[in-house]
């Protein structure tokens, strides 16, 4: 009973299926929760865009076993992920690395915001003086700005 309740709580943000098989579960719920969190970030390499947490493929089951063993052996998340990327390449992780080669990926959305804000600011600044001027007023502004020392 208590174990199920804990599992439910630890499941938290994870929403998934295949990995929940009770036959493979680690005895320690905290370790199991850690393993599940790692599963969600590991791609099932032979599947169509699924994490090993979702996939019922054999390779996914094997990878889950590997991760669970390493969690049980007390290795850290970073160590386990490094082990996986050393073996299978960057492709195995669902979260792309924050690296220079991925600059476009991570920086792109930020760039769009900056660019958009810049354009908006430019437009607001350039045209804020032109609000609602009649031709006479515009002429006066022109004369005044000519005599102005700045």
């Amino acid at each position: 009973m208590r174990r199920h309740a804990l599992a439910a709580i630890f499941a938290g943000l994870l929403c998934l299926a295949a990995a929940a098989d009770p036959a493979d579960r680690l005895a320690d719920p905290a370790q199991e929760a850690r393993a599940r969190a790692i599963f969600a970030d590991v791609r099932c390499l032979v599947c169509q865009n699924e994490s090993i947490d979702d996939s019922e493929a054999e390779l996914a089951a094997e990878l889950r076993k590997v991760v669970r063993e390493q969690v049980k052996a007390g290795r850290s998340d970073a160590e386990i992920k490094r082990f996986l990327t050393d073996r299978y390449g960057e492709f195995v992780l669902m979260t792309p690395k924050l690296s220079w080669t991925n600059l476009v990926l991570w920086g792109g959305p930020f760039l769009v915001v900056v660019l958009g804000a810049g354009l908006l600011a430019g437009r607001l600044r350039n045209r804020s003086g032109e609000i609602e001027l009649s031709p006479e007023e515009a002429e006066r502004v022109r004369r005044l700005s000519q005599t102005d020392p700045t």
Partner: protein
Amino acid sequence: MIAEVGSFALVLALAFAIAQAGLSATARARRSTVLAAAGEGAAVASFAGVAIAFACLIHAFVTSDFSVANVAANSHTEKPMLYKVAGSWGSHEGSILLWCFILTGYGAAAATLGRGLPQGLKALMVAVQGALGTVFLAYTVFASNPLARLAADQIPVEGRSLNPLLQDPALAFHPPFLYSGYVGMSVVFSLAVAALIEGRVDAAWARWVRPWALAAWSFLTVGITLGAFWAYYELGWGGWWFWDPVENASFMPWLMATALLHSAIVTEKRGALAGWSLFLALGAFTFSMLGAFLVRSGVLTSVHAFAVDPRRGVLLLIILGLTSGSAFALFAWRAPKLSPGGVFAPVSRESALVLNNILLAAATATVMLGTLYPLIRQALTGEAISVGPPYFNLTFAPLMATLAIILPAGPLLAWKRGDLQGVGQRLWVAALIALGVGLATYALVSPRKALGALGIAIGAWLVVGAFVEILERTRAFRVPAADSWRRLTGLPRGAWGMTLAHLGLGVFVLGACCELGWKGEAAEALPLGGALDVAGYHLVLETVGPVEVPNFDAERAMIRVSKAGKPVCTGEPDRRFYPAGGQTVSGIALCYRGASHLYMVLGERRTAPTGTPIWLIRAYWNPWATLIFLGPVIMALGGLTSLSDRRMRLGVARRARPEPLEQPA
């Protein structure tokens, strides 16, 4: 015979589409009303041709005519009627025919309805629509004819059936809605190209664009929601959005269309952002076509991509490059000459809408990069990377949260120069309520989740903000109640539509954050009589028995659910085996508890060490999951309400006095 009639009608439709493009373009060049009317007639004829072809394809599916290759590959005599009909658009060829059917349908509608448009603009729009029809119909006729026959010695006795995962009511109606959304953007695209050629984009243009954009956007919203709902209860993972490339492909045009709906308001009311609105109008359909290409070309790996064929992928890429490439080239050439329109202060409704557009554009960029960057990087360097949900959670979610935070202020700001203090005075109650809800969630709901509570606060802010907006419009509590009532009933439908759409977003955010934050999960291998607990519910596996139905073999479990000793409901999840395709699919059971769901899945049968059979049972507690699907439905209703606004029809009302074809310069 009927299949041949269909093929013939399809070729006729192509001929009419070519005629439509040619006649209408010449009509514009020679300023001839006769040719323009002929072009419009060709548009209707082209639609009729595709409709006949489509009816023939449905007939072939309904009668299980396996001499038609597409039917043999995708149907089965024992399939229920609904899925026989839906099977006609379930395959690559059929879906492209559906695309053409809707494309020419929109073309015919635009040709017959758009009578308020200046005739030059309209003739050009019909011509562009005809060109689009030509390209897609030519692709259908020459590269993907759904009515092609098999050679006599290859005709099978039985069909290969539709993928069982696709045999589902939500999915049967998913493509028609989705495509009505995708392809609805074609009218917006054509109007944009026509306006670029004419060199005039003004308030009137924006007014003509909005109803089409609204209709397409509403369809797309419903289509995406149906897809998400299908994934939710058919895939059996308990999730509803996976940031899968195919989902992203449908989400990008939606984001673009949402941005367009907002920027077109600025163009209509203030004559500003004309260039940007044009850009979005072109972009929305480009992303629709990009989606069609990505899903069919095989460049993506996805749970739900079509059977792939690289040769067709290349053709679709060429179509995409030709149509969008030339449209954007035209844009680059003509857009700099457009008038920048009215000016506005930093604090104004215009600024708020521009901010909305910046954030939506950035969100589109996020989704696009997440979808395409892995492909590009692999093509350039040969290294493969994965971009999964964590990336989108880190980039998309903050952008949308920012958008949601500024959203309720937008409609309360005045045009040109807004009054931030005034907005603050009107919204402080809403802000206080949202803050209170967020804090209460953080303090009281266990387990404690800061991000979940923040999401709930944002959802509450949107919902309360929508109500404040209506109260403001009616001056409630500031004028006598009767006055407020009169104002309320006199509100234009466009205002109701906007409020509904914003309310729907709030409802969705509440549901999504609650579900993501406090989902419960349990899985256990149970013998008969075994029990499992999730989120306070006690599930007992009562019986498991075989079910024999014509279309599949199944094993069905009966699970009795109780809470604190009191019976709540019974769930009957099943596990189906489709002999025709050799696939096993889980049929989930949902137990509705208010807006929350108890989601039950029957897994494989095993044998316990003691020799008794056990079944893997998974159960999820999905709090407020109904709101995830209800929210977008409210948004789409908002779109339709807005569409029924009288102002949207003003263009039509003007038909009493036809304008001369020559336009004032």
